[in-house]
């Protein structure tokens, strides 16, 4: 059975309870969810607004490809990713990834994998605004290192 995959990019807030319910397909035994929030920082790094720019079209496409990669690596029942764009305040949710599977091993691995590739492949860019001014967030090498943990699936030449 093909996994139910959903990728959404939107300005408005999302409803984790409804997203969770949509993952509970078939004889689902395990759901793993990740929610990422805007952090407020402190002192000279304080953030009052986080601005999220993206590349409409490529964003949705890259999220869908990441979900398809995950579903090809693990026997998933369902996987959803929702990413917000526009202006967000500290404490607001930015991103939600949920995975439903028969067993927890694949649900944990796939959720972690989807976040790693979202962070390093999906065309989103963050700009922080605060009392000390505005600055684009720099890409972190730790994100590249996390993404590099995932070897290509067996039998794949990618």
């Amino acid at each position, binding site marked *: 059975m093909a996994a139910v995959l959903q990728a959404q990019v939107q300005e408005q807030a999302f409803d984790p309870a409804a997203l969770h319910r949509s993952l509970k397909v078939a004889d689902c035994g395990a759901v793993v969810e990740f929610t*990422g929030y805007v952090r407020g920082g402190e002192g000279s790094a304080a953030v009052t607004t986080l601005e*999220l*720019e*993206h*590349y409409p*079209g*490529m964003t949705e*496409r*890259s999220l869908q490809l990441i979900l398809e990669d995950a579903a090809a690596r693990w026997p998933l029942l369902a996987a959803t990713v929702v*990413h917000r764009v526009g202006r967000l305040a500290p404490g607001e949710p*930015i*991103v939600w990834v949920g995975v439903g599977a028969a067993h927890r091993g694949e649900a944990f691995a796939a959720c972690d994998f989807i*976040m790693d590739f*979202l*962070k*390093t*492949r*999906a*065309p*989103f*860019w*963050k*700009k922080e605004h605060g009392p000390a001014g505005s600055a*684009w*967030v*720099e*890409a972190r090498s730790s*994100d590249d290192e996390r993404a590099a943990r995932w070897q290509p699936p067996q039998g794949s030449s990618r």
Partner: protein
Amino acid sequence: MLRLLFFARVREQLGCDRLEVPWSADAATVEKLLSHLQQRGPQWQAALGQPNLLIAVNQCVAEPADLLREGDEVAFFPPVTGG
């Protein structure tokens, strides 16, 4: 025509988010287009000369030697920072 798009820091440095340029046989690969664009002036040289610049052709990340065809969408952007 090639439809060029610029995002995030690259967009701000250029003061430009999109541009249409004619397709030409002497700029028919990603790297040739890039060096043509860098010749538009010092701002273009600076914004498009960054070593970590990413380029997507028709919404897929491209390599320098990739061919460009009439009508392609070519996007220039810094490393991504979503999530």
